[in-house]
């Protein structure tokens, strides 16, 4: 049961898309220069873009910034939330994660390898008000904190958060993915948010 698309109409003046990039380690001067050149802005740990109406981040920026030093991207567009994690490429981890790929129409989990980095994508539909309820006044920061923990778990080999996406959005694919038990705390939190909002 899904909403396939939402097109705002004449009362949409407040509608917008936001993208917040978080770096776990401060960007180096070289990385900042590259970011500055691409976007005209840079932040050592945090970079935010906000677009009104139907406009959104320029093509290619997300991927590029996630290979230029930012580790986490949280985006929101019309109640469609996406989190992307950038991790060092690890072919063993890629192989293990592929079974959990379940991205469809922007929801679910996906991964790709770009410039020696693995970029993991988590897409979910959450009502904005509910996101506030779940993550506090700054849902972007809240989701980034949650996925920072999840990122650490993934690097340690715990794939709970990927399984949580299959549980929610996997549909028929969940027959093929190996369940993860017990789930990590971050995965349980994520599952709870996705199921209840």
């Amino acid at each position, binding site marked *: 049961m899904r909403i396939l698309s*939402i*097109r705002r109409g004449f009362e949409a003046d407040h509608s917008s898309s936001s993208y917040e990039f978080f770096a776990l380690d401060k960007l180096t001067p070289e990385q900042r220069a590259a970011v500055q050149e691409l976007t005209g802005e840079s932040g050592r740990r945090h970079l935010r873009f906000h677009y*009104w109406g139907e406009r959104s981040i320029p093509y290619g920026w997300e991927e590029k910034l996630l290979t230029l030093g930012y580790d986490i991207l949280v985006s929101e567009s019309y109640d469609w939330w996406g989190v992307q994690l950038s991790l060092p490429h690890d072919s063993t981890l890629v192989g293990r994660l592929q079974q959990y790929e379940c991205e469809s129409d922007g929801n679910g989990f996906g991964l790709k390898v770009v410039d020696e980095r693995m970029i993991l994508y988590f897409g979910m539909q959450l009502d904005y008000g509910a996101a506030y309820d779940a993550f506090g006044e700054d849902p972007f920061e809240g989701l980034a904190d949650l996925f920072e923990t999840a990122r650490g778990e993934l690097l340690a080999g715990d794939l709970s958060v990927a399984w949580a996406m299959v549980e929610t959005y996997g549909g028929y694919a969940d027959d093929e993915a190996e369940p993860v038990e017990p789930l990590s705390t971050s995965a349980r939190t994520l599952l709870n948010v996705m199921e209840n909002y």
Partner: protein
Amino acid sequence: MDVWQLTQAVSLRPETFGGMAFHHQRGVTLEVDVEAYRFLCSYREPGPLPPPGHPALRLLPQLVRLGFIAPAGDDRETPRVVPDAPWLGDGLTLSAPETVHLAITARCNLACSGCYVPHFATGAELSAAELCALIDKWARMRVFQLAVGGGEPLLRQDLFDVLAYAHERGIVPNLTTNGTLLTPDAVRRLEGAGVARVNLSWCGPSDGVQNQGVVRALQLLLGSTLHVGVNLLVSRVLLPRLPQTLARLQALGVRQVTILRPKPPAIPTETNAAWYNANRLCRTDLSRLQSVLNAWQGALRLEVGSALVGLMGDANPTSLHWRGIYGCAAGRRICTVWPDGRVSPCSFLADLDAGNIRRIPFAELWKRGMNWEALRDPNSYLQSGCDGCDVAKQCGGARCIARYERGDLFSGDAECLYAKGEESANDGSMC
């Protein structure tokens, strides 16, 4: 027990993929899958919320926040629903247009050199009675919106009656005008007729006299309850002055601007063809335009016209689909009805005439889509010059430009930022 219901501002209609829901007051359009459509239909009558664990509970917060479902109150008018549409479309083509563009007259008090209104449109205009009969048919098909333009629609004395009738029959009327004929009384009558949005056409620095009229019209409209936008036709002449133009519009209190690009006339004349060739935007121009839009985003709400998806930023197919952006929707989601009753897929493909509603019922014209077969072929975009573009299905390029440039409706849109290969000789030589 709390009882909930679809709000009366909502229209529903089934489609092959599930269905569509339109909120008349907010102008929000939802497309939902079959299960979600059934769920929405189940709230035509008041009922309790689904039990815990029901999959619909995941959708409910959005549906409530968007104003589609609300606690049932005293106002329990039944929402507008098409239970059994005679034809469900084929997924790519909808069962009925979302919006009908109605060129209510070809007459105009201005003589813009780039005007695209074809010569045949000057035939006998559909009368108010004919238009009301047509609106009845559109209401039955559950057309959501009417975009009334011209010519200059305010030249028709019966305009307000037609707009009010559409509103009464559950179709949201919108108006595009050059603004020069707007008076305080006309604005009040537009409000009274239930018009949702008025867009004023702003042509540029060479049309100074006209723009004085538009400024007066804007001031009148911005003091009204109507939603107001400006259609800004960004020609090669206007482009260098675009930042100043946007600043001026902002200073006037405009919040919403729709960016349009010159398009070739379907039936060229010496005048309009010369204007188009001198003003069309090449890729270099589009890059400049994108830079200006990036600089101004946030200060104004900037929309881009159909098939300018490349200027919207993220060319991510999933994201575009989620936001209901379909680029060129000619003959699949929209159509144009000309003053003499002819129906074409859009205003710039006027020669692809599917017939005249004076002779063939509109529903039949829409379903048959005679001469529109290529526009409705799901493989056309993927075999066209747009093949290989990530967003070919979401954007499709501007078919009128492709045809003008190469004589083939499904060649690539040479005036696209993402177009592959060389620009046209004409286009590139002028950059």
